């Protein structure tokens, strides 16, 4: 489904990605973990070119993402859901509008878009909050709106960029529950960046550890945590134990 080869990205002298190779199969849930600044978010943003890589190849269903022109890229992005760490909701729109406005702009009938919007909002537990504005919601609710917005197009790939990082611990669980539910109930390919070790252990089919812009270890969660090879994996194992 997704194949990344020798992906490189630098911000000036800072090397964010240093030759990353990664393959994700259709319907697979892959969790990327690693210390802050190791390049996780950059990697996930490169997948839909929110961040332009310096070099490397990204293939989605065999299609070279790097070769897409502006229109093709927009089309590609409509099939890729992206959940941001900071929610990135449109402040002036209502919850429902946030979820469905891009469907309308993409050409869908307004009523159909509303209907689909309500369905996904119900799915993430926000039924009844359709007419509220983002600033009237809690962080967890806002993130669930963000998830609904990503889900509403039935994307083939979902990219999660630390969706719980901006939430306080009480609100984290409500988002993780939604995510777990989605993983269980949909066949969408998921690439999740998170620090939630227990969540990763529960939902990930494969965990990828990154450090200093490189993939240092990857494998099935139970195997990795049973016998971590890298220092980073060992550190995360200790977190799991505590």
């Amino acid at each position, binding site marked *: 489904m997704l194949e990344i080869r020798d992906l490189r990205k630098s911000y000036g002298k800072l090397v964010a990605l240093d030759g990353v190779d990664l393959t994700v199969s259709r319907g697979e849930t892959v969790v990327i973990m690693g210390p802050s600044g190791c390049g996780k978010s950059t990697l996930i943003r490169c997948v839909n070119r929110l961040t332009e890589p310096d070099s490397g190849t990204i293939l989605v269903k065999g299609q070279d993402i790097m070769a897409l022109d502006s229109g093709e890229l927009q089309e590609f992005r409509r099939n890729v859901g992206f959940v941001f760490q900071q*929610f990135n909701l449109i*402040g002036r729109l209502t919850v429902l509008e946030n979820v469905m*406005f891009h469907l309308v702009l993409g050409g869908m009938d307004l009523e159909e878009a509303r209907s689909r919007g309500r369905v996904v909002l119900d799915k993430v537990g926000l039924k009844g909050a359709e007419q509220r504005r983002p600033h009237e919601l809690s962080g967890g609710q806002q993130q669930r709106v963000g998830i609904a917005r990503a889900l509403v197009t039935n994307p083939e790939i979902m990219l999660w960029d630390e969706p719980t990082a901006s939430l306080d611990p009480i609100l984290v669980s409500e988002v993780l529950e939604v995510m777990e539910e989605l993983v269980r109930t949909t066949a969408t390919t998921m690439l999740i960046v998170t620090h939630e070790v227990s969540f990763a252990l529960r939902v990930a089919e494969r965990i990828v550890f990154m450090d200093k812009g490189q993939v240092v270890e990857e494998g099935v969660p139970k195997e990795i945590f049973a016998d971590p090879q890298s220092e980073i994996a060992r550190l995360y194992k200790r977190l799991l134990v505590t």
Partner: protein
Amino acid sequence: MLVFFRDGFYKDLIILLVLTVIIGAVFAQGVAWAIDTYFGDTLDGMIGEYGEYDVILHIREEAKETALRELERIGEQSFPGYKLNQTLTIAGQANFFFGFPETHRTKEVLEGITSYFGAVPGINGYTLMVEPSVLIRGVHPAVREDLMEQIEALSGVRFVVKDGVNLVVVLAEEDGSADITRKVEDILQKYQILELRFPMGFEVDTQEVGEQALAILHSHSSPGQSEYKNVTSAQYGEDLDAFLKALVEMRDFLGSYASQVRLVPDPQVNLGVGELIILEDDLLIEVTGIYGDHVEGMIVEGSPVQSMDTIVQAGYRYLGPGERGEFVADVEIENERYRLAYAVDESLRLLAELEELSVQASTAVNNAEGVLTTFQEALMQLEVLQVQMRQLNEGITNGDAKSSGEQFLVTLLLNGLFQTLAQGVIHTGEESLDSLQNLDIEEMRESLAGISAQISNVQEIDVAAIMEQIGFVRDTLPNLNDAEIGQSIRLINTYLGGQVIPGERVQLLIEGQHVDEKALESLFREELENPYMHTYSTSVGMVTPDARGEVFRILKEVRSIVAGMLSIIFTMIVLVLDHATVFSTLKFLRANDRPNKRRWARLFNPLLVLGGVLGSLILTSVYYLSRSQIPFVSLPFVVFLGFALGGLIVVFAERFSPVHSMELMAGQSLGLSNVQIMREIVIPPSRPGLLNLLNRFRQQF
């Protein structure tokens, strides 16, 4: 970057640009027009409607009450139906606007203003403001009458009024103003004043030279081509004459105060006035005059050795700093300034010695008088003794001689005594004594008294005061070196040479085909044998707008300046409110672009160019369409200013109009096109401007 516009946003931007320019031009023009109208109405309020008043009478402020009563009396008595209005008082001068009734608006009345209003208390003069009229300024007196005659013959002209050196052409109708102005200009164009100016120091008989110049003109022109007339008028005022005279004196003084430079040119070398010669000790000499073999110069750089003697050095042609050419002359320099200073110092020494000398001479005369008195007394005693001796001698000779031995003894004693007393002075006996007696002791005494009196006179002279004054003169001598003197003389010469202050001048009136004054200059120089004269050409008068026209011209300028300033302000506002948002977005998107590997492309910022072009386009269009005109600001400068403003907006775009980058990124991740991102995400929360307003018609959410 072009991708950003390609998917549709360019249409929004074009509409925005067109509307911006139209609104900007209308706004700038409208505000300027409003100001123009306001000031125009205010002006009408102050100086009346067009043609309402004919003359402004300037009255001293303290007399304005009395003057008002007198003006009302004159109006009622001489001009029934007159109009009078007191307006601004400026710098202690009140201004009364007086309008004559139509029947009295005649040439005679307007030329006789002084006879009507000359006795008004506190009057300081008047200014004609008859409307409609055309004003001709600075009319040459030689053509005034001719001009009046010709202009009055024009259709649409009521009459022409003399107003000092100006002519006021009073028109029948306002509409004919432009046409009459053109015709008057055509008449003026027929005349030309050719002026021959001579530098100071060339005093010429202007009438005689004028006639000579006329003859030259006649001899070098085709018959009937033009008419020439000598119209030389009076020279300058007394003040200027005195000033010029002082300058000449100053130049002569400096010339004699400077070191005198004479040159003995090499026979093979031709020297010219103004040529520079450098000496062995780097003194720079300028040749100031050539009189046959006698060549004079002036030091313009450096100072000569201080010496009483004449300094002789070899002079070389000066080719530039540090460069000298061939030998051209032996140069003799006499340092007059040093000689003068030396003479003054010696005078001071002499006076000091003189004072001492008079004291000593007085003592000597007193001593001489004492000696003379002693000598006179001694002479009297000798005389008595001589008589006694004679008597004794006679007694011895004529009496009974007791013995020849006694006689001999007495004679011997007397002779010895005589010798002792007279000590050789009277050793010759009676003859010598007689000669002593013949000395005129009294005359000698008188002579001594005369000398004494003269010495007393000398002593009475206040030598200290003289010395103090000579010292003062020495101290007040200009502290200038030769180079400074030379440069000062050069500067004075430029003044006297006519470059700053003209010297004598001859004026010729040319009617018909104009002459080329510069072409004639060399001819006049040659024929009049004066290589320093210059020729100038002037018109016989200049058509200018009337007072109100002048004020309205200024108002028009103000309107143009206001429109220009508003154009700039409007452009800045538009750039900040509308375009900063666009550039802010573009900068965000560009930051996420793949870095260009080509070095030149990394240095080149297309956003700056785009901003500059946009700024130029808006400002130049608004400026041009609003008919703006700021003095000293040319259209290319406006283009540049617009470019700079646009560039500035690009640099500070995020500060002027920050975009919500999170929302923008969300839009990208949802697969929205750039135009959708702009319309739905970026512009709606942006600053309220035209872009925001126009966007409301396009945004869906």
